């Protein structure tokens, strides 16, 4: 077994934290406390958590808009993230961005991006700069399989391959881009094969297996870091909730969703921990209680924080103000 007990429990805690965070966010959305769009990551937590466990703290991360999981997996205070969802002055971006654009530069989190595919060339540029500056940092860029149908995916990865930059692209193939199943929109459903046309080494992994994610990311990131050029991982997964809130989900059956839930990444990991005697029920209960308290604090922080002052509206447009 290639996982130490403390790490194993930490993976469990982080996945549970993201899950409970989003369940509470979902509730708050229902109460009208969070506005606009809320894209939940429920069912896909093993990817963010496994990847962050493998990456170094100063490796750069650029993500798409379904982004609560990445920042929480990197250890950002859930209160800052919840306050951002609430649109409060204490939020991670002072309420300027909301759900889809979480960024924390001190943690090398360059943000969630809501123009699908728009962030892929940015990640290539970050990686080229790391290479130029001789920094041993890998840039990891997360996006969904839907994003592999837009031009910036190919053009960005082509540049990455031409200059052999230290980039790791992680495609979260959760089967649907909004209401469109992968095979209806992509000529190739096994997304990792798309890397072949650019000579980029790629693998397909079980994105619901947190250890498989951690190991694949470690291996691919190390190769990219060592100057081997970009890598791509296709992590197969499934989103348990709608695309965003209020999605009637007519594009799939309830049975399909229930079947997928049997492979809930948290459940799988829990079974692994118990089955291999890494943890007892009581240990896991203690972790759950800790998560509950942490999320409760986060929600309270968001609730009690003030809204941004209207003077914030025109701040940060340009450098000198």
């Amino acid at each position, binding site marked *: 077994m290639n996982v130490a007990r403390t790490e194993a429990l930490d993976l469990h805690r982080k996945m549970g934290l993201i899950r409970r965070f989003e369940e509470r966010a979902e509730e708050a959305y229902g109460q009208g406390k969070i506005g606009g769009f809320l894209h939940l990551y429920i069912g896909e937590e093993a990817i963010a958590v496994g990847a962050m466990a493998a990456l170094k703290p100063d490796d750069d991360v650029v993500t798409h808009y379904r982004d609560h999981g990445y920042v929480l997996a990197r250890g950002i205070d859930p209160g800052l993230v919840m306050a951002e969802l609430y*649109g409060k002055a204490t939020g991670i971006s002072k309420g300027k*961005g909301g759900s889809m654009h979480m960024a924390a530069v001190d943690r090398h989190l360059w943000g969630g991006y*809501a123009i699908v595919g728009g962030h892929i060339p940015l990640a290539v540029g970050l990686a080229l700069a790391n290479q130029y500056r001789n920094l041993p940092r890998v840039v990891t860029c997360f996006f969904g399989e839907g994003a592999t149908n837009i*031009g910036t995916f190919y053009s960005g990865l082509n540049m990455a391959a031409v200059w052999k930059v230290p980039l790791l692209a992680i495609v979260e193939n959760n089967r649907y*881009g909004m209401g469109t199943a992968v095979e*209806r929109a*992509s000529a190739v459903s096994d997304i990792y094969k798309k890397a072949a046309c650019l000579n980029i080494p790629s693998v397909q992994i079980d994105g619901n297996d947190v250890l498989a994610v951690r190991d694949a990311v470690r291996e691919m990131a190390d190769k990219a870091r060592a100057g081997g050029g970009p890598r791509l991982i296709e992590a197969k997964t499934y989103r348990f909730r709608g695309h965003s809130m209020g999605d009637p989900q007519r594009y799939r059956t309830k049975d399909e969703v229930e079947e997928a839930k049997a492979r809930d990444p948290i459940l799988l990991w829990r079974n692994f921990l118990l089955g291999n005697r890494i943890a007892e029920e009581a240990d896991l209960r203690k972790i759950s209680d800790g998560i509950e308290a942490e999320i409760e604090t986060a929600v309270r922080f968001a609730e009690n924080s003030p*809204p941004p002052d209207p003077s914030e509206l025109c701040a940060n*447009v340009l450098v000198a103000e």
Partner: protein
Amino acid sequence: MPQATLLQAIHDALLEGMARDPRVILLGEDVGREGGVFRMTQGLMRRFGQERVIDTPLNEGGIIGMAIGMALNGMRPVVEIEFADFIYPAFDQIVSELAKMRYRSAGQFTAPVVVRTPSGGGIKGGHYHSQSPEAYFVHTSGLTVVMPSTPADAKGLLASAMGGEDPVIFLEPKALYRTVRGEVPEGEHRVPIGEARIARSGDDLTLVAWGAMAPVAEKAAGLAAAEGVSVEVIDPRTLWPLDIGTIVGSVNRTGRAVILHEAPRSCGFGAEVAALIQERCFLHLKAPVYRVAGFDTPFPYALEKSYLPDPRRVLAAVRAAMAF
């Protein structure tokens, strides 16, 4: 006449246009089985088949580029871009290709593509689900730019756009989709491209507003009336080609003008309208032409209400013009 929401009116125009003309094809992300993010095209795939309502991959530049080719080759594509904010990946196709076909071929061919897209704020969508891009397209010669604010206009203008010979950017104020209702003529109904609508008559000041700002303008006019100021509200409906004649006629009579839009103020379409008014109404003006607009910032999430013009802000401009 039956009542309909803006959304129903646009849906009806699409349905009737498709029934009338087999060359009309809809394409966009999730427009078919799902009926679109706002459910605008619901039922159309079932009715007209998968050949005429096409679910595309996520690829705006590809969608619009493909629509141009289809249009050159005798089809009448109507594209849906899910949010106006996602039109920028297709900006090159629109500006470099779509807009120039007629001119660069010296009239040999044109690409009558209609690009429909929900525009503007009001749903707490933040940076990328709220913007108002009309000025970019008005600035691009060769495009017709339409933005209705009433159900009847939406139906009639979309019918005209679909029946026209040139490309049309059809901006739909998403904030009004389900919040405005109005009478809509049944069956074929056309509103000519390039004709403004006088939404309210008045004598003291001309207020020009389009899209989701048109109802805000009417509310502001109501507040002004309570102060004894008679405001004429003009909704251009077609931003380009602009019906400047109607605006000039009104301003020459009232002597004052305020322009209202939700897009950022600087180089917004209001700047062009103000320039045209001062060129043509100079000696009739009793006050500077004022603008009320969004701020010169990216679109905010939490501070959306502060960003969007409201009737109070409009009233302040009306008062300034009256007091000048």
